[in-house]
Structure formats: structure tokens, C-alpha cells
């Protein structure tokens, strides 16, 4: 390892230049120091507030699930964390989102570089209409990856538990894969950039139960290296894979706690109503 890589956990899987100096090396951080932190975050589309005054801390190397009924603002909150909301017209943000101490909506943050650090997997699998190999290789190449791309592709596909299924058709179109394989390819594509955080926006809602189980296993393995934020409307999924769960309702953060606690002793009656299936 080079000298620079020793001080910066973002470069522990080296190959990319650093985006900014981190506040403190990860080794000296307290174990639960949040990696992403929203402070009184409000997001409005025109006059409609999709997210209201949410303060939420995302601890590192854990799976945080955000649950809630449709339209509760959980996807909006997630998409604010890597500024994928920028493409929505009439969007206004008040409050702050801090990623490792950097104000994401502040003047010092380049969203292009942020999105390399904070990757995203979407609800519907959206591979590029290109070969499996190019799907994974493209992002590292345009971001100036200095290592061997072919090795990175194999490694990423292995991490996404897809390698054995696609190793003989790396140069076939990704659109020929099944839905579950496509979603794992999207995950491979995201982790090929060696991100810090992986945001997942209902990654299994378009998949059948078997493909869902494979993705959930994968999320469980990924949390040893990545921080995962998972938006889901499936409470069983949140209970199965997450360490912490946040419940949102009508744009507000109602409750956030360890997943066990949320599902066994919810502190708020609305949380209890939701997880027991009385609404939503």
C-alpha cells in the first residue's frame, strides 16, 4: 500500500485519487460515528414537502433500512444522499446532509465525485444496453481507474455473486440476463467503483422471491465492507437484512432504532400500527 492509502479508508481498496481530505482517519473514529447524517432536512417539490425536518444518522458498515408506506418520502430522502434529486425540477433543500463531515448540498461538494463515493442501485434493474463486461468496466474507466480493469470486473462480479453465472457470456448483452441477474449486475457495477456507501432503492421490488433471497444474502455480505442504506416497503425484508430501521410516515421520521427493537418494542403507536399491518 502507498503512504496515502494508509491514512484514508476511502483508499483502502486503492485505485482512485482522493476527493477531499477526510476529517479524521476511520481508525480513530468511534465505531458508531455516522458516515452520513441529515440535519433538519426538508425537501420540497414546489409547495409539497416530501421530506420534513428529518435528522437521521447512518452508522458505518451496517445496513440501515428505511421503511414506510408509499409516498412517505423514503426514496426522496435516499436520493438526496447522493444528489440524484438534482435532476428533479423545482426541488428545494433546507437543512443539511453531511457525508463524512462534508455538506453534500454545500458549495464544496462536486456531485459527480460524491456519486462515485455514494453509489446507488435502483428499483428497476437498469443495465446499460451493452455487454456484461462493459456494464461493470465503464464507470471505473471513466473515473480513471489505474488498476487492471479485467481483474476489477471479475472481482466485482464475484462480490455480487454473479461471476459463475456470467463468466462465459461476459461479452453478451446484459439485457439477455434475467431480472435478478440484471439487478446483481447493477450491484456489481456499483461496487466496482469501490464506494463508501451503497444506496438501494427498493432493489428487490421487481424481482421474484428466489432472486430477492439472493440479493438479500448479498446485502448481508456487503455490509462487512460497505455501508448500506436500503429503502423498502417490505417490512419482512427490513427485519431480515437490516441492523437499524427508520420508519417514515408522511415525510416525517417517526422512529429510528435497532431493527430488533423496532419490530419487537416499537416506541411510537404509528410504527406499531404500520409493522403490524394495520395500515400501509
Amino acid at each position, binding site marked *: 500500500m502507498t503512504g496515502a492509502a494508509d491514512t484514508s479508508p476511502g483508499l483502502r481498496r486503492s485505485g482512485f485519487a482522493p476527493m477531499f481530505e477526510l476529517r479524521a482517519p476511520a481508525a480513530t473514529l468511534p465505531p458508531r460515528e455516522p458516515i452520513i447524517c441529515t440535519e433538519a432536512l426538508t425537501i420540497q417539490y414546489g409547495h409539497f414537502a416530501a421530506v420534513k425536518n428529518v435528522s437521521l444518522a447512518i452508522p458505518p458498515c451496517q445496513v440501515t433500512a428505511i421503511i414506510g408506506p408509499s409516498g412517505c418520502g423514503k426514496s426522496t430522502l435516499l436520493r438526496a444522499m447522493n444528489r440524484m434529486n438534482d435532476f428533479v425540477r423545482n426541488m428545494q433543500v433546507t437543512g443539511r446532509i453531511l457525508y463524512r463531515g462534508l455538506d453534500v448540498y454545500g458549495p464544496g461538494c462536486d456531485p459527480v465525485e460524491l456519486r462515485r463515493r455514494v453509489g446507488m442501485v*435502483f428499483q428497476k434493474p437498469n443495465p446499460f444496453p451493452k455487454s456484461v463486461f462493459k456494464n461493470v468496466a465503464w464507470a471505473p474507466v471513466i473515473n480513471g481507474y489505474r488498476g487492471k480493469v479485467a481483474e476489477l470486473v471479475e472481482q466485482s462480479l464475484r462480490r455480487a455473486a454473479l461471476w459463475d453465472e456470467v463468466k462465459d457470456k461476459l461479452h453478451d448483452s446484459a439485457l439477455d440476463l434475467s431480472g435478478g441477474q440484471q439487478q446483481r449486475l447493477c450491484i456489481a457495477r456499483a461496487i466496482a467503483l469501490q464506494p463508501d456507501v451503497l444506496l438501494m432503492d427498493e432493489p428487490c421490488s421487481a424481482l421474484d422471491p428466489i432472486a430477492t433471497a439472493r440479493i438479500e444474502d448479498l446485502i448481508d455480505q456487503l455490509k462487512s465492507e460497505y455501508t448500506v442504506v436500503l429503502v423498502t416497503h417490505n417490512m419482512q425484508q427490513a427485519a431480515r437484512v437490516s441492523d437499524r430501521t427508520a420508519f417514515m410516515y408522511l415525510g416525517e421520521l417517526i422512529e429510528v432504532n435497532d431493527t430488533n427493537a423496532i419490530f419487537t418494542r416499537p416506541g411510537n403507536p404509528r410504527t406499531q400500527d404500520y409493522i403490524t399491518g394495520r395500515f400501509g
Partner: protein
Amino acid sequence: MSAAPLHSRTPPPDVFRPRLALRRRLGAAFAAFCLLLTLGALGVLFVLLAQVLLAGWPWVSRKFIANMPSVLTPEQAGMKSAIYGTLWLAVLTGLFSVPVGLGAAIYLEEYAGRSRLARFIQFNIANLAGVPSIVYGMLGLAVFVRWLRCDRSVLSGALTMSLLVLPVIIIASREALAAVPSSIRQAAFALGATRWQTVRHHVLPAALPGMMTGIILALSRGIGETAPLILIGALSYVPFVPGGPLSDYPLTSTGLRQWLSTALFDQFTVMPIQIYDWVARPQPEFHHLAAAGIIVLLGVLLGMNATAVAIRAWQQRRRT
């Protein structure tokens, strides 16, 4: 029905009146109507084509393509100058209008957003696409021929034609870009791509077939145009090709440049104008020449379209 219902949850029969037979008949009638219209249109086209082929085919020959037009001896007349004029015009129009049109379409669709200025520009482009071609001819006459002193040249013609096809190219290319699913753009942005990288590597390749189709249609329309070129002064009797034969010039880069600049500012004619001129003459021989000219014009258009389709197919194969 007096018997027991088929299923206990079958709704009472009076809630729906399916009229299935009527609905099917209506569907069949509409299909037949559409078929009739299609056959009618094709039939008219076929009759026209047959008439042209009958009148002109005996006159289509190597001589007809290789000879210059002749006013005195229709048997010796050819349309070499018109074919060359059309090819020059098509290539130059493509060179001028395709980069500008694609650039404008990419800017408007991918960069401009929904600002008031962008909407104003879009509205105007849509209107320009509907302006009659003769108006472009007058514009070309005023701006290129007179004001910029390009005279009645190939260059003036190509610039005028570029103005004419630009709105069509921009609109078709924008449609092609808009048809690219936004999930592809989101995927690229979420991977730390800049807007240019997203457009260059994912949006443009996906939109290219649609763009090519629009460009082909626009250029084909331009090649068939007569009115604006008559206005800017394309001649009907031109016994030379633009620039003259390339072999008249020294085989050096200076020679090539001389040839090019001579050609650009030479007077010219195009196939539709040549055909128009022949049709307008009283002698029946010239009418046969016109029919033969139409056949050659159709051949050139088909050739250009086939080339473009082949390029498109090749691009699509290369991409996977």
C-alpha cells in the same frame, strides 16, 4: 338461463351487455378500412411508377447518365450535370446541417432544461419546420446570393437547403434523444459520470438509429426540392459539372483545393430542376427524357437511403 349458474360468483347477466359479435364486426370493419386505404395509396403510387417506367425506361442508358444535357438533340441529351449537382448539394447540405442539427438537438434535449429561452427556441423550430420551402429560397436569395455575394453557386444552394432541412433534423433528433429511457441516464449519473460522459457513451448510441432515420428523411426531402433552388437561381441548362473534371487539376493538395473552391462557387443544376425543364418543353422526346430523369432521381434517392440504412445496421451490430 333456467339452469343453475355456472359459478356461484357469476354476476347477474343484466349488469354487462358484451355485444361481442358487434364489437368483433367493428374491429374487422376497421381493419378492412385501413387495408383499403393502404392498398389505395400503394395502387396510385404503383400506377405512377409504372407510367414513368414505361415512358422512361427505354431512354435510361449509360449515355443518358454520362452525357451533358442538350437542347437541340434530345437523343444525345443526358443528365450528368444534374446528377453531379444533386450529389454536390446532398453532400454539402449534409456536412452543413447534420453537425449543427445534432448539436442543437443535444443542447436542447440534454442541457437546456425547461428554461423560458429553451421553450421559445423549441417553439420557433417547430414553426420553422412548417415554413414553405419557397420562403427559404427567398431567404437564401437575399442572404447567401446577394448579401454574402456567394452568387448563384453550389454553396448558396447547399446553405439554403441546409436551412430548409435543419428544423426537421433537429426535431427528429430531439425525438430520438427523448425516447432514450431516463433510467439509463440515471444509471450513468449514479456511477459518477459527468453529463457529457453520460450523453457521449449511453444516450447518443441509444438515440443514433432514430437520429439517422430523421437525417435520411430530411436529406431525401431536400434532394427532391425544386422551388427554393429555382429562386436562388439554379440553372436548367448547365453543360458542365461543378468544378469541372478533377483530372483538369494538378494532383496536389493545391490542385484539390482549387478544384474544391471552383466547384463551390460554380453554377449548377439539380435533377428535379432538369426534369422540370424537360417536362415543360413541347417536344415529346423531352417528356421521355423527363421520365428517364425521374427514374434516375428515384435510383439516386434509393441508393442514398440504402447507404444510410446500411450504416445504421452496421452501427447497431458494432454496439453489442
